[in-house]
């Protein structure tokens, strides 16, 4: 994402933010915190995806209802039975518990959706390039080879078609499968031969002779350090709040929620960081545009 302020931050900041956000969302099941998670996640998801984001968010709704409704079928604890199904009580508490679990699931989906947009593969490899050099090199090569191989596959298929081979559109599954295997075989031969050339070329240029240095396109700026500090502070205070029992929520057999306190505020602030950055940037852009 080019037009997102948070995406322009250092990958380490991005990565740690998502580890914190997704990690917390899995542990906390207090309704107030869940609501905060859903709202902030949805807002940031919409900022990243624009109008197309609504489709995904609305698509999560049936999943939410399904997961909510199904929980009382397996969890029959609870003091207020709504009705009996197959001789087992279908309780209000279990239904609400189901809603909490469904919310967790929705939060995870939303934040993972944002993660996929923000922490792109180039950021991931640049972040882990010095820790796992060989594996991230393999990863970079794979990410480059996949589009390359898809092009080659299309070439092979086209070439086969022009000599009258290959499965037609209405061919049977068996023919399609056989044809696919032939194409895959041709691709494999070509790719493996090429891999040896690449490998030898890498060795000839001195791969493995010394410790590989890596070019870092991202630098930790003052903003990044400040952001990291704020993130850690907010996260630490939320964890402290959790240790004091502020996020405790018991659903079955009877609902018992801890009263909300400052933990909710710090948690919401933490989750609002990317949105706040995005909006701040948008306002700045608006101001500087109106000055012209």
């Amino acid at each position, binding site marked *: 994402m080019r037009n997102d302020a948070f995406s322009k931050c250092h990958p380490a900041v991005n990565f740690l933010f998502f580890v914190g956000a997704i990690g917390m969302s899995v542990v906390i099941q207090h309704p107030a915190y869940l609501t905060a998670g859903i709202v902030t996640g949805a807002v940031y998801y919409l900022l990243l995806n624009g109008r197309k984001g609504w489709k995904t968010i609305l698509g999560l709704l049936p999943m939410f209802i399904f997961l909510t409704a199904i929980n009382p079928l397996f969890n029959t604890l609870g003091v207020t039975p709504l009705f009996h199904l197959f001789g087992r009580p279908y309780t209000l508490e279990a239904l609400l518990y189901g809603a909490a679990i469904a919310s967790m699931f929705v939060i995870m989906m939303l934040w993972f959706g944002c993660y996929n947009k923000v922490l792109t593969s180039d950021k991931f490899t640049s972040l882990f390039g010095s820790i796992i050099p060989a594996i991230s090199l*393999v990863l970079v090569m794979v990410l480059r080879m996949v589009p390359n191989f898809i092009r080659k596959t299309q070439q092979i298929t086209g070439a086969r078609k022009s000599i009258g081979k290959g499965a037609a559109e209405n061919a049977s599954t068996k023919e399609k499968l056989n044809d696919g295997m032939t*194409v895959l075989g041709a*691709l494999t031969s070509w790719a493996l031969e090429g891999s040896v050339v690449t*490998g030898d070329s890498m060795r000839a240029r001195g791969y*493995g002779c010394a410790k590989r240095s890596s070019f870092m396109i991202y630098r930790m700026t003052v903003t990044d350090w400040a952001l990291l500090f704020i993130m850690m502070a907010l996260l630490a205070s939320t964890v402290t709040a959790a240790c004091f029992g502020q*996020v405790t929520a018991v659903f079955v057999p009877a609902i018992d929620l801890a009263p909300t306190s400052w933990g909710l505020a710090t948690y919401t602030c933490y989750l609002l960081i990317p949105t706040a950055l995005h909006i701040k940037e948008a306002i700045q852009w608006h101001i500087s545009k109106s000055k012209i």
Partner: protein
Amino acid sequence: MKKIKRSNIAMLIVFFLLVPLTLFLGTKLPGRGYYITGTLIIIELMIPFFMAFEGRKPQARELVVIAVMCAIAIVARVAIPIPNFKAIFAVIMLTGIAFGPETGFMVGAVAAFASNFFYGQGAYTPWQMFGYGAGGMLAGFAFAKGRLPRKPWVMAVFGFFAVILWVGPLLDCSRIFLMLSTVTWAGVIATFISGFYVNVSQAICTVLVMLLFGRPLLEKLDRIKLKYGMMEDEDGL
């Protein structure tokens, strides 16, 4: 006696310190404690493998071959013009059979991770990485040194059971821990039943690829090994 390798030390630390510690602390977590504990253990189990791979400073040729096999496993979906035909696991297992357990693990884990850059990372990513990686490694062990004959139908049966008994249930586990409020037998069985169709369809895909593509692909991989003398010192323990 040679110096103990760092990855072996890591293995010991993981098994005797990290995993029990995670299990102990995991019981104290509220919410989806099971999921966090499970995912952390999965990630911890993969660390020694990655350290071993980094530690022995793999040669350029080996790196490129691993990358190529990962990319082919991902692209197989495009090459075969049948919707929802997943050949990824079959290619990973064939790589394990041809190049040995360690390469099989790396190709499985990296292919799962890299394919999710195209289809979206999610809560299941570490589980998928471990499932595919361990599946490739298992295939490498089972077929090394002629323990099992490299016949298409043997590989097909092996692949079928590897999907049904290992990869499928592992991915179902990540859903159980994520979606069930309390882990009860009824819930577990329901999750396995709901995942059964997907697992069976993937198992059938694996069988078909093994039967049709198993021998030609193995011949190609063996030919490359012979022609360029690659991965010779790695005949699979």
